[in-house]
Every structure is written in structure tokens, then in C-alpha cells.
């Protein structure tokens, strides 16, 4: 099970409970705002500590309330793409992209800078500072930065919400390629039904009445042959 989550969280006065086990592919965390979707993501990343429960990704247990295990975020090998991209303002695009890459042990890196910048179409931006980028460019750099850190799984918090309609399409295609070609398990927070329908293999709905898990529709699913013809040769295939 790529994602095996069963946790209770307290954020301010709100009590959040989430419980789901899902298979490979992209899992959408869906629900109204305030349902605690981002908190669940932060708990999986290790940025906040649940009150109790257990979080495992693949074979590795990241948090276990019973044994008081709480891995530090930097030990979890997760690629987190934030809603607001969070690029380091004092570093060039290139240095942003290489930040996690440099910190990752060589054995865990599975993508090179050139590969990632080509994959995301940001090769021409490497020397720029983040403040000079458009929203879509920033988000693609943020995705690149996460991929280059050699993650075993990706966490994405409404990566499209700060983008206009036009830019969304491009970033959405990138996310589909990560899902299909890189085969990384993705936990994807969204409150947009269309996004979820298009991208998700599994839909986890958070709400006051509890967690519900359903299969996704993936409306953009074209026959595999056609999809392969439309897309360039996969980058480094790997199996996290």
C-alpha cells in the first residue's frame, strides 16, 4: 500500500481524523476547505505531529503513535509541492532546483538537473531569480525542486490553485506525466471536482462524517498506445 494513513489531529479547536489505505497512482484528498486536507499532508510530510495513529508510505513507517516514532521531515524523502510554491527568494532557479538534490544521498537521486528542466520545460529559466517568474513557471520549478530531491513519494497541496486557467493545463499535463511515466505515488490535495476527476486514481474524501475512499474516474485517460505516441520517451524509469 503506497499510502497507509490512520491519524487523529488537533488543529486549534478543530479535530481532524483521517483513515485511508490506497494503492499506487495519484490519490486525491478531497473535501471542503477546513476539512483538514492540508493538515493531513503536513502530517505525512512530518511538519506537524499527529496526536495518535500511524502513517506508512510503502514499506516504511513514518509515524507511529504507539511506539512514539516520528521521523523528522528531512528523513522522510518526500517531495512536497506547496500551494504557494515556496521557492527560496535568495537563490536562482538553478540553486532552488539543486537544493534538495545536493542534500540527497547519491543513491537516492534518480533524476538529473538537465532531465528535470527538460521534463518541466524550465531549462531557459535556470539563471533567473524566482521573483521574475510567472505563477506557472514558479510552480513548475517547485515541482522540479521536489522531484530532484530524490523523493519516494510526492505530496501536492493544490498546486494549480494559484494559476489561471491557461497555465493550469500545462502544469496538469506535467502532473499526469509524473503519475504515469515516473510512477511516483502522489497524495494530491484539491477542492476542485474537475481536477480530481481528471487526475485521481483514488479519491479520499475528508469530512465531518469521516473518511471515504473511492476509485477515481480519470477522465483524461486516453488509450495507452495513443498516450505513448503523444509523449516523449520516459525519463529515468524507476520504482520507488
Amino acid at each position: 500500500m503506497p499510502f497507509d494513513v490512520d491519524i487523529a489531529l488537533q488543529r486549534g479547536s478543530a479535530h481532524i481524523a483521517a483513515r485511508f489505505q490506497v494503492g499506487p497512482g495519484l490519490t486525491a484528498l478531497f473535501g471542503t476547505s477546513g476539512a483538514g486536507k492540508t493538515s493531513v499532508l503536513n502530517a505525512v510530510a512530518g511538519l506537524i505531529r499527529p496526536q495518535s495513529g500511524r502513517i506508512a508510505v510503502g514499506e516504511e513507517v513514518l509515524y507511529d503513535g504507539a511506539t512514539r516514532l516520528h521521523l523528522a521531515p528531512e528523513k522522510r524523502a518526500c517531495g512536497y509541492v506547496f500551494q504557494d510554491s515556496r521557492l527560496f527568494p535568495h537563490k536562482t532557479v538553478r540553486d532552488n532546483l539543486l537544493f534538495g538534490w545536493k542534500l540527497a544521498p547519491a543513491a537516492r537521486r534518480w533524476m538529473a538537473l538537465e532531465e528535470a528542466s527538460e521534463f518541466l520545460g524550465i531549462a531557459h529559466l535556470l539563471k533567473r531569480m524566482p521573483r521574475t517568474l510567472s505563477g506557472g513557471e514558479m510552480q513548475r520549478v517547485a515541482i522540479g525542486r521536489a522531484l530532484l530531491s530524490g523523493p519516494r513519494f510526492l505530496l501536492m497541496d493544490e498546486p494549480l490553485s494559484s494559476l489561471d486557467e491557461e497555465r493550469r493545463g500545462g502544469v496538469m499535463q506535467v502532473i499526469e506525466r509524473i503519475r504515469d511515466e515516473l510512477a511516483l505515488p502522489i497524495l494530491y490535495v484539491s477542492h476542485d471536482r474537475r481536477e480530481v476527476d481528471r487526475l485521481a486514481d483514488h479519491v479520499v474524501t475528508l469530512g465531518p462524517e469521516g473518511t471515504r475512499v473511492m476509485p477515481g474516474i480519470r477522465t483524461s485517460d486516453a488509450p495507452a498506445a495513443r498516450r505513448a505516441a503523444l509523449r516523449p520517451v520516459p525519463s529515468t524509469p524507476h520504482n520507488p
Partner: protein
Amino acid sequence: MAGLLSPEEWQVVVLSLKVSGVAILIDLPLAFALAWLLARGRFPGKVLLDAIVHLPLVLPPVVTGWMLLLAFGSNGPVGRFLLDTFGLGLIFRWTGAALAAAIMALPLMVRAIRLSLEEVDRRLESAARTLGAGPWRTFASVTLPLALPGVMAALVLGFARSIGEFGATITFASNIPGETRTLPLAIYTALQIPGSEGDVARLAIISVLLSLAALVISETLTRRSGQRKAGHAL
């Protein structure tokens, strides 16, 4: 340039620069630690610590000087210890002038660094952690560079404050030519002597120039960091 000032006046200027330079170097690690505690720490007594740090800013400097005498004088507990252990004398010595300047500059430096630390976006630190950086690496590669303009501004402000320090210095370290007679003390001394208006004016002009330079540098640093945050050209 050298001809404009007498050897004694040069001595005063050089001594002032030395005293102020040492004062802010003593202050830097201390001010940073205090600023960090006040900006990030959550502990009981934080309000009290904040108040104590700011005390030299609002106390009459002569009171600060007297309290320094009590603590660091030859009979004071800390002064006795420093003298016996390291042979470090403070009374009537330039080291004492540096200590007085350091205490007086500390609150300004803590304020400047604290503000810059509070401006650092904590969410960028979280991002660094998820990318594999431990707490120290995150501090060195994200927090510190982003707070750096504030640290630089603190150094400049502290330097300017030290150059101007008078009351605590004359109370604690006295007014010894070549040892503790910094610019303000030299101006004060010259004012006591009839017919030395020219000396006063020259020393005063040097003071104005040094302070002006410090303010311009500090303002430039602050503006530059503001621009970076606002996303304009650096």
C-alpha cells in the same frame, strides 16, 4: 587629510573606531542569541527578558555606567573575576569603554536582528526541511541569508550608537586621554577649555560624518531587503 587633525585628535578618532568595533563584535553573537530567543522562543519570563534587554535604551546612561561599576568594577563580582582569572582590567581602560559601548548598543542590535528574524517566512524553512535539510542546514542556508540585511543593519546601528556613547563610558571607564577618551568625551573635554572652539568644531564634524555614513548604510541595507521581499530588482 592627516594635516587637518592634531596627533591627539587622530588618537581620539582611532580610539573611538577601536572601541566601537570591539563593542559590536562582542555584541553580535549575544544580540543574535537574544534576538533569536525573543523572536522564536516560547518560555516563561520572555516579557521580562525583553524588558531587561531594552533597559539601557531607556535608563539614564549614567545609571547604566554606575551599575557597570558595581558589577565590573575592581570590587564588583564580575570585575574581580575577570581581573584575577584573565588579568583583564576594565576600569580606566579602553576595554571598559568598549564594554560600556557594547551594553548601550545591545538593545538596538537586538531589535534590528529580531525584526529581520520575524520577517523570515517560516514556510520557507518548512520547505527546506522537506527537501532534506536538517535544522542547522535550514538555518544556515535559508534563515540566516534571509535575515542577513537585518544583521548588517544591526552592526551599523550598533557601531553608530557606540561611537556616540558618552554617559555610561565617562561614569564607568572615566575620561583618560589615549585610553577611554573617545570622540564625545574629547568634545566634552574641549568644551571645558576656553578658546578651543576650533577643536570642538573639528571633532563635531567628524562625529556628524561618521553618524551620517552609518545611517546611509543602514538605510540602504534595510531598503534593499525590503525590495527583495517586495520582489523588485535587487
